[in-house]
């Protein structure tokens, strides 16, 4: 017994090192599995508060740019509104909004990252503003990600620039679907995988969200096809998609809430059983 205690005392630094290293490995592994990073995230009171303060200061330097984006969007929405009779088939995005199934909330991004392989954004709305897990987040130009963590006043968004992210998407022209993933190489491009080889893939075509996930309404813009390759197996295409959104510069976002989400989800789990 004496020897064991002596051993512990002599090697206390090494043992502490082992313990702490295992703890950090554990946290890392936990953060790699979806929805499990419990304690260490930027949506908590402390880091959220600090990011919020700095974002308030930084917002002033960005006002002009944000105004331009808003005017651009207003302009587009107005032209849709006033031309809706003539161009009914060409209404570009968000055409499901006329359906009152989707509720929109605005929020401001207080922290954005795009240089790591697992990127998250933090926004200044949380449970107090009835933001829940698994809501979709978009900007006026395109898709941003999913809510993956909430605290009282802040929420963390799993960016599409995250190797864990998988979002249902499809070609705009036809209904061929695929999964949107990211290979961590460039913040401008994401990859659409598992597209059937029968799909008429062409460079320059538009990619939109598919309605299957029931998180995003069908038809939100994602990007255009930059290049594509046939997989070695020869069955599916891997398509490189250039995002419409500039993920490195995001100010205001919209959070989409699907009122039927729980109903659809419970129905789908019933079928699985």
């Amino acid at each position, binding site marked *: 017994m004496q020897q064991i205690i002596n051993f512990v005392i002599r090697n206390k630094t090494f043992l502490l090192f082992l313990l702490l290293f295992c703890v*950090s490995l554990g*946290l890392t592994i936990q953060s790699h599995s979806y929805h499990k990073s419990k304690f260490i995230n930027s949506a908590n009171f402390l880091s959220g508060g600090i990011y919020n303060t700095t974002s308030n200061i930084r917002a002033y330097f960005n006002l002009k740019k944000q105004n331009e984006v808003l005017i651009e969007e207003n302009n587009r929405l107005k032209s849709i509104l006033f031309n809706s009779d003539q161009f009914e088939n060409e209404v570009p995005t968000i055409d499901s909004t006329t359906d009152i199934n989707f509720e929109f909330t605005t929020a401001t991004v207080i922290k954005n990252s795009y240089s790591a392989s697992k990127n998250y954004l933090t926004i200044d709305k949380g449970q107090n503003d009835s933001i829940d897990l698994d809501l979709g987040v978009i900007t006026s130009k395109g898709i941003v990600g999913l809510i993956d963590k909430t605290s009282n006043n802040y929420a963390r968004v799993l960016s599409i620039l995250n190797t864990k992210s998988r979002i249902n998407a499809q070609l705009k022209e036809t209904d061929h679907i695929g999964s949107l993933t990211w290979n961590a190489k460039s913040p401008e491009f994401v990859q659409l995988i598992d597209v059937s080889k029968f799909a008429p893939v062409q460079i320059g075509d538009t990619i939109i969200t598919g309605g299957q996930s029931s998180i995003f309404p069908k038809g939100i813009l994602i990007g255009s096809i930059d290049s594509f390759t046939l997989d070695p197996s020869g069955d599916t295409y891997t398509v490189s998609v250039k995002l419409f959104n500039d993920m490195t510069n995001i100010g205001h976002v919209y959070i989409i809430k699907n009122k039927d989400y729980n109903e659809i989800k419970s129905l789908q789990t019933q079928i699985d059983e």
Partner: protein
Amino acid sequence: MNRTAINTIFEFLALVLVQVLILNNINFLGYINPYLYILFILLYPVKNNRTLFVFLSFLMGLSIDLFTDSGGVHAGASVFIAFIRPPILKFSFGMVYEYQTIKFSQTEFGNRFVYFSILTVIHHFIMFSLEVFNISNIILILQKTLFSSIFTILLCLITVILFSKKPR
């Protein structure tokens, strides 16, 4: 609470804030960021209690993780370089370290450069390996390690030169 302890706490907080509020937003060429916070581990006084040092390094890494949503990536890498610091000190500074009289402001530039480089490269390699967590992306890991290391080493050396107390 003596003077060194207060200095250490101040240094700790300042480095965390500088790292998360300024340096994490640089994103030079898309993904290159300097990680200046390891300066805390590099310059921690040699004579001090080693167990406490390992623990403080862990806290340092964890605070960075808290802000960057990276799980335990920074904590793991920081605690690792804190643990292997003594042999690296011995290797880079030789006899001076043996007598436990080392003061970083009085060491030669060459020695200091070697010491910073070794620890920075090890830290970045572990950090990016944990972050990417995929052995098939080893090229990406090495690429990130190389470029970020150059940036970090430069910034650390400049900071040390700027903030060192002038000999009277």
